[in-house]
């Protein structure tokens, strides 16, 4: 899967979780940019990404997923394993 494909799918997950079809994200989008990106929605995001791509994040990794880019990079790293 290319990075663009992962990005598009992740973008859809974001639109779904934050219930906003017009939501735009970039690699540097983080919790400061989206008001409702709190600890609860962070876990919702992680769960949806796991389900979508069939990967599993460890507890110790969640804190490092601070922005969209980090989330996509780690997903790709896990997909290539």
């Amino acid at each position, binding site marked *: 899967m290319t990075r663009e494909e992962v990005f598009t799918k992740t973008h859809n997950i974001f639109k779904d979780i934050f219930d906003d079809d017009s939501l735009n994200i970039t690699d540097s989008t983080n919790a400061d940019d989206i008001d409702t990106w*709190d600890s609860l929605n962070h876990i919702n995001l992680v769960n949806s990404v796991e389900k979508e791509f069939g990967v599993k994040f460890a507890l110790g990794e969640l804190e490092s997923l601070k922005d969209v880019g980090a989330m996509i990079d780690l997903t790709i790293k896990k997909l290539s394993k």
Partner: protein
Amino acid sequence: MLFNSYEFIFLFLPISFIIYFYLTSKRLITASKGWLIFSSLFFYSWWNIAYLPLILISILFNYSLSKSLIEFKEHNKNYISKKRLLQVGLILNISLLIYFKYMDFFISNTNFVFNSEISLLHLALPLAISFFTLQQIAFLIDSYEGLVEEKNFLDYTIFVIFFPQLIAGPIVHHAEMMPQFSSRWNLVKNYKNISAGLFIFSIGLFKKVVIADAFAQWANLGFTNSATLNLLEAWAASLSYTFQMYFDFSGYTDMAIGAALLFNIKLPQNFNSPYKATGIIDFWQRWHITLTVFIKTYVYTPILRSFSRITFTKAMFATFAAMFISGLWHGAGWNYIVWGSLHGVALVINHHWQKRKIKMNKILAWFITFNFVNVTLIFFKASTLSQAMEVLNNMITGNIVLYHSLDSVLSFLTPFGVHFGTVFTHIGEKPKTLVYIIIAFIIILAFKNSNELTEKFKASKYSLAYIFTLFIVAISMLSNFSEFLYFNF
């Protein structure tokens, strides 16, 4: 050995520093690590050598267990599954903590409920046990989840026992610490780090010795005389404790960060001007940050992820449960449980508030947050629940006593129950208290915090003079060597 003692500042710290960099300059890397471990163990044993075996066994056990978890091969015939292995590790670590920290609490509550007379164990709390247990639990879980690669035993031991963070944090994570201990770049003396380290160490020493220890006397007297406080005294006592807590704990943390920086080790930030917070969620992102991160990662998230469908209500349950556990972690007492629960409830309310997108005036939000923190700290400080209620009660219904000198101007208030006399009799009869409280408010609200200052720090004539002044003032007041509040947790 306390950071705020002559033997630490003038003997232990310089000697451990000089010998460490002498060894690294001779390329004796293993010896230099050995030296760091030896000096940290010496530092730990200074209080009570009896618990030295306990921390060593804990390190050996957790290191071996994590090695088994890392090297675990699923297809081999195993007597025990990987998950079971982790569970055994977690249970043993937590049991050790429960045995030393909570047994007497359970026994006395059992005695109370069943009217039994089981005798208490009266165990001394092994220093640092609450902190090294958390750090090693995180290491075990990460080993189980495949985030830890084969690690060097010396680096692991230093990660747990490195003296700046050993006793009361910041709670460090192996992923941020162990690469620093194994990096060759950190083996050369770095004058920029040394001057920045001395800078933040001096700020911390000043916070502890000059500010926190002054507030400590008034807080202690106020809580001892909790039943007889007048209204202003009750407020002064509780504010004194709130300020003591911040300047003591963040002062300790500054000294830890400074001492570690001498060895080119960067400890994580633990405080970010917490009393500027404008909400309880905000507060916990600024106060004891490394504990918040630990609780969020290893308590809150697993609870929440154990549900099949995550809803707001379940997240709020997990939030409350995490704060309840955090309260209990601080100490074996109902007062800590009440403190944790109150913060849990406040976080839930704050989340509801945020969800409904209700905006509040910033000043009002700060006012509510600060007062909530101040009031809940009364439970944290009080030795019994009734003492906490007495202080709290006097903050609302205590007698209003104002200074003599105001008598002539404000005498018309007498019919409303206002008295005139000496105000702070029950907390030490010092008008200084009021001045300190005002100065403390200015410091916490208007000043940059020590981390912000250290980030911008540049060695110059002025900054050296500044360090020197802080240091000399603090050293000259160093006489009673009072312990840090968080050493009891």
